[in-house]
């Protein structure tokens, strides 16, 4: 697959960066949007915009239909039992904060344990630190095997009778390794804890079935799966959401408001205060259509092919150090993380930028993981369905120039 037929759906990738055709390998940060998604957003604002759930007129009904049909589509996409279990947020970070504040603060007490993995993105870590601090709870971490997978014995030993919440990512945004969420959920449920899953790096890349995984809460962002920025999802089991207090309060999430008291709306409105991002929901709906048209078998095949193509070529370069690329146990999504010996990742990214290649450099919002691995920061190339082996070749060619530019090799 030297080129890729899907790239023609992404006109943004038909441009140059620093005079070279752009190679976009920062999909773990955000993906590009296909024409169909851009058209859906334009179509909403160009033809259907009104405040949903409010106006008693046709245009508002249209907007409401678009918003609610997007919810139903998301529910089906991740196999939620009911659309009301889908709460629209602005991103996974807000979704996880919603759980931390509305569930965590009300259900965690002094001495309770919250268990995370050391892989967590700050968005599924800092909110739990805040809850632990506010309630006097104990934050515990599940550490990794040598190859970067979550250690099975740690799952068994860290989750105890005191554990009330287990929060983990389904796919590490740094290592790209897939965690066995079902196994963690079973263990958590055996001690009566709830499981909160960050699906930001899994939902765009693999079929997710929240019922089969038996998770209690599941969060993801639209913008990492071809949809616009500013629309995200929280799935929660109906019973849990029912018992929770609202996260934000105000318009559209109420039933009756008296001078001193308020009764709240039913799910999902209870968690959607204020005018929502209907254009974003329209874009997310079109993104799901696009992904389903291609299918996860094809998406996984493309990403696997790119990783299989990239790894031996990176290993040929003696100055490249790879992270999370030796796992025999778990699946890996299209993420390749590495360092160039003696060169800081930020300098690597600048040199690749000059070659038209976009990668991410830094700690990828996972400082505790980097500290645990004993590294300051890393370079990450993350693939998606429109990338090709030509893109990998351009990455490799760029990397071959890095040490020379830094005056390390002649």
């Amino acid at each position: 697959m030297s080129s890729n037929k899907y790239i023609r759906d992404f006109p943004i990738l038909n441009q140059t960066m620093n005079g070279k055709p752009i190679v976009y390998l920062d999909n773990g940060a955000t993906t590009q949007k296909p024409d169909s998604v851009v058209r859906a957003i334009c179509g909403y604002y160009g033809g259907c915009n009104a405040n949903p759930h409010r106006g008693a007129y046709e245009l508002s009904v249209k907007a409401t239909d678009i918003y609610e049909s997007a919810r139903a589509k998301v529910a089906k996409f991740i196999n939620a039992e009911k659309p009301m279990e889908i709460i629209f947020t602005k991103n996974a970070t807000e979704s996880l904060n919603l759980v931390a504040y509305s569930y965590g603060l009300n259900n965690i007490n002094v001495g309770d344990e919250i268990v995370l993995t050391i892989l967590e993105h700050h968005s599924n870590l800092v909110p739990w630190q805040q809850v632990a601090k506010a309630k006097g709870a104990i934050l515990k971490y599940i550490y990794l095997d040598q190859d970067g997978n979550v250690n099975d014995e740690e799952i068994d030993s860290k989750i105890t009778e005191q554990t009330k919440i287990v929060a983990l990512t389904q796919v590490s945004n740094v290592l790209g390794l897939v965690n066995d969420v079902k196994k963690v959920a079973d263990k958590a449920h055996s001690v009566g804890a709830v499981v909160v899953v960050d699906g930001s790096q899994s939902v765009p890349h693999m079929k997710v079935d929240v019922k089969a995984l038996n998770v209690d809460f599941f969060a993801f962002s639209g913008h990492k799966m071809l949809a616009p920025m500013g629309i995200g999802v929280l799935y929660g089991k109906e019973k849990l959401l029912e018992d929770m207090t609202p996260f934000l309060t105000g318009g559209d999430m109420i039933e009756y408001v008296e001078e001193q008291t308020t009764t709240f709306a039913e799910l999902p409105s209870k968690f959607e205060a204020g005018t929502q991002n209907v254009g974003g929901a329209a874009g997310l709906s079109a993104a799901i259509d696009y992904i389903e048209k291609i299918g996860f078998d094809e998406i996984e095949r493309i990403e696997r092919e790119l990783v299989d193509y990239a790894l031996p070529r990176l290993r040929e370069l003696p100055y490249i150090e790879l992270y999370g690329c030796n796992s025999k146990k778990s699946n890996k999504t299209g993420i390749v993380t590495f360092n160039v010996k003696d060169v800081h990742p930020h300098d690597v990214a600048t040199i690749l930028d000059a070659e038209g290649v976009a990668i991410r450099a830094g700690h990828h919002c996972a400082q505790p993981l980097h500290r645990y691995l004993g590294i300051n920061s890393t370079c990450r190339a993350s693939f998606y369905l429109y990338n090709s082996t030509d893109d990998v070749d351009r990455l490799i060619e760029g990397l071959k120039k890095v040490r020379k530019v830094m005056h390390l090799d002649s």
Partner: protein
Amino acid sequence: MILDDIYTELIAEHSRSPEHRHHIDNPTFTERGHNPSCGDEITLELKVADGKIADASFTGVGCAISQASTDMMIELLKGKSVEETQRLANLFLSMIKGDVTDEAELEDLEDAAALKNIANMPARVKCATLAWHTLNSAINGRKG
């Protein structure tokens, strides 16, 4: 983008073997600077005596630009008065903003003037300015 204008031999040298990366005895000020998005971290140590920077050093990790910039800054400010140090820091920050481009005026920055081209690289401005903002915090903290 002409990489050779950024990653000059001089900057490579300052970042690879920074002369001033060590601790000093009994610093008057120890100030940490951090770019959370990319992970550059430095700790600046200053010894001030009689209104002058008697000694200075740094420790830390970061990209070539942040480390070279810090090393060149320390080279420049050693022995200077605190007031002059502040003037130079502001001159450097103006240069990176692209507000001062006159070569003669920038001569006062000595080696650090080599980072002038960072003005054309918005993605790397934070790396170049980290040390100088940290210096300002250290000195202003002292005044306050």
